[in-house]
């Protein structure tokens, strides 16, 4: 029996987990369910020794588990099967098995002998795996099997699976479930992190739900239904206040018709979506990360090539001088050049402004003044325009992005997770700026996984799931329960 006793974990001001207790029994598949950011991965990290909790402790059959020490935990038989595989792709399967079982001495290495237990387990589980094949030649599903076998070879008592189905095809999922059940029958503790309700209902015996780092409920799977679980996951559905009466629609804005967008791997990330956003309106798009939101946003703002369908502004194709503002999801990667100054980062949308340049040359004094203005108007806490963005806090970094984009209110504004990682004050500030843009006639699309944020901002909300947009705002569609 693995027990988490009042476990908390904080990163700076953020509580990733707060006073969570849970009991995981042998011979049971125990699913931990929650949305992005609910604290699932943190809890699993604590259980498997990768994360050291700020408070609380973990016991295995009454003995205290050395949290924060993954190798010691491994020795106790607690193994984690990671979402991102920890295999050396240039090695063969056998070498990967051996690597996990190597002792520290520098004696001659007998790869086949070290790999033998894992190979035997593979046979027992009914998996055919050639130990001499290079891992890089294996499909993702087979790589996961290698990962699982690697963990089992040490005679694991506790197996923690971090979203194991995320990378699998449907028939591979069924096979994985078969193996999970077999492991359970063998008397092991099986823990499964998931956010897909359907899969949890199919395989788990018991489920624990987390929301925003807090324990919500724990139940045997026979005693709850999908709807109940969904409600636990997302909380009481925030109901968008009906703003229809107070909406001042300035006029027709963006129309999207049958838009399909290709993802990075040539897959269809966005599948035939159609919607309208009027000027002076905020459309919210919710849903779990990775369902095509980034691709949709990038296609709308013209960053991503490779799409089919129509995007119209006031009934006509986008004019080249249409003002489009885009706040990308990942400000460090796509929003800012952190090694440059605030001024250079502001200049990303300023270098084209006529008043800031003189032919090919930049009017550096005017630019400095303009940037000082932005710093003041958007309350960016920094000594001056020359300050490097890398030295700013997350909130102030986001303000730099927002200031640059909303300096002149664009006609169309697409923002993604605009307040991720920000404190309450900075969040309010950014929300206020977005509302201002709306009231000056901007057509706004807010894409966020944070339902509270959408309730706060959006006039109406659509949900994105597997590349499609749905009106249905019931909790089930949100967490993929009916997909």
């Amino acid at each position: 029996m693995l027990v988490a006793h009042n476990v908390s974990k904080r990163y700076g001001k953020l509580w990733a987990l707060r006073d969570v207790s849970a009991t995981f029994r042998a011979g049971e598949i125990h699913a931990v369910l929650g949305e992005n950011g609910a604290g699932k991965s943190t809890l699993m990290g604590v259980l498997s020794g990768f994360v050291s909790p700020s408070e609380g402790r973990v016991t295995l059959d009454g003995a205290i588990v050395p949290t924060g020490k993954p190798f010691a935990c491994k020795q106790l038989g607690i193994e984690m099967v990671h979402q991102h595989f920890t295999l050396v792709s240039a090695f063969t399967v056998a070498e990967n098995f051996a690597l996990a079982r190597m002792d520290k001495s520098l004696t001659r290495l007998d790869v086949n002998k070290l790999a033998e237990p894992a190979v035997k387990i593979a046979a027992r589980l009914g998996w055919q795996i050639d130990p001499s094949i290079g891992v890089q030649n294996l499909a993702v599903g087979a790589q996961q099997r290698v990962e699982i076998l690697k963990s089992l070879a040490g005679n694991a008592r506790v197996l923690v699976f971090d979203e194991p189905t995320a990378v699998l095809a449907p028939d591979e999922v069924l096979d994985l479930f078969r193996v999970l059940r077999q492991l359970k029958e063998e008397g092991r503790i099986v823990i499964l992190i998931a956010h897909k309700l359907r899969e949890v209902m199919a395989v788990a015996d018991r489920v624990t739900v987390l929301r925003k780092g807090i324990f919500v409920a724990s139940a045997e799977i026979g005693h709850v239904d999908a709807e109940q679980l969904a409600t636990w996951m997302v909380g009481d559905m925030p109901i968008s206040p009906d703003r229809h009466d107070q909406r001042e629609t300035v006029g027709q804005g963006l129309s999207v018709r049958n838009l399909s967008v290709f993802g990075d791997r040539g897959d269809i990330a966005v599948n035939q979506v159609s919607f309208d956003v009027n000027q002076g309106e905020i459309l919210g798009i919710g849903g779990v990360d990775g369902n095509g939101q980034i691709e949709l946003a990038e296609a709308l703002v013209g960053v991503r090539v490779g799409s089919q369908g129509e995007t119209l502004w006031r009934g006509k194709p986008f004019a080249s001088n249409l003002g489009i503002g885009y706040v990308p999801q990942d400000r460090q990667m796509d929003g800012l050049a952190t090694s440059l100054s605030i001024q250079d980062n502001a200049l990303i949308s300023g270098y084209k402004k006529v008043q800031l340049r003189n032919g090919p040359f930049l009017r550096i004094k005017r630019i400095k003044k303009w940037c000082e203005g932005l710093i003041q108007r958007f309350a960016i806490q920094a000594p001056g325009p020359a300050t490097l963005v890398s030295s700013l806090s997350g909130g102030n970094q986001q303000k730099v992005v927002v200031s640059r984009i909303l300096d002149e209110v664009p006609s169309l504004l697409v923002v993604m997770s605009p307040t991720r990682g920000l404190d309450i004050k900075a969040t309010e500030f950014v929300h206020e700026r977005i509302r201002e843009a709306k009231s000056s006639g901007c057509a706004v699309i807010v894409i966020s996984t944070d339902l509270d944020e959408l309730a706060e901002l959006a006039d109406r909300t659509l949900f994105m799931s597997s590349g499609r947009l749905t009106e249905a705002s019931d909790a089930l569609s949100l967490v993929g329960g009916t997909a």
Partner: protein
Amino acid sequence: MRASTAAAIIIIGLPLVLVLTIMVFGLPVLESLRLMMQGAFGDQFGWSRTAVKTTPLLLTGLGMVVAWRAGVYNIGGEGQFVMGALVGAWFAKVAAGLSGPLLLSGILISCIIGGAAWAWIAGWLYAKRGVQVVISTILLNFISVQVLSWAVSGPLQESKHQLLLTDMLPDGAMLPKLSRQMDVNLGSIIALVAAGALFVYLFRSSGGFLLRLSGANPRVARANRINAQRAQLVAMALSGALCGLAGGIEYTGIAGQLGLGFAQGWGFLGIPVALLGVLHPIATVASALYFGALFAGSENLARFSASGTTIVYVIQAMAVLGYVGLNAWAQRIPVQVEAD
């Protein structure tokens, strides 16, 4: 690391490295320093020698600054230096009838175009085919040396076909010198102007801004519909142009003809010069001057001791290693933990 801290460390660190190196070589420190100072700045001849060494270092250094700022790590300064000069020599041969100044300008422009084109190959391979610039430019260096050896034994060989050299340029097509006794020539002024122009371009023009942005974070450029690849191609071409110009000035200012010994590593030396110039055009002037003076000074030292200019290479290597180490230390990334 803040720019001022970096500057302070470099200004204090460089003389320290110099003194340490002299001690390791087992030479008397004060006497060696005196000899080096005398060789570099002792009289007008010393100044001339320093200027002559500084000029190619500055131009190839500037070439590295513009490429590295754009995130394309051009290691091919040497090849661009050689190919620039070769295209210049070709122009000198086909346009031999032109009068002095016209011929000289034509040669220098050809050198610039030749260097730019050679670098553009690597830039194009990177932008269109994803070939790493570091690799392609190193390989292009080898090719350029082979092309040089083919040219001076074939199409560009001197008229008597006896030596592996090109024809000597007519005096009128050489860069004007300050005096007959000294090598210092107009090329040094051209290099200084290039440094000023590069500063203006990088920090006072929209093109330079896009170049720096593309180097700092190409994904931000993409998210703002800015073509980072084009900026990086431009940067490569500019980088090659500067290195080609360096070759042209060495050709028309000092050598007057090309031979197998023309590739003396100036293109490689530009890299440490640019690094210690913190990839800033103006600081690179100071950095090039420092190393130029070291070269000039160590030649004088060599007349009195067995260790000649090798001492400069040791100092350069130590300085660069120290600088890279400091940078790594300053930019060490704290272990980041993700919340869920």
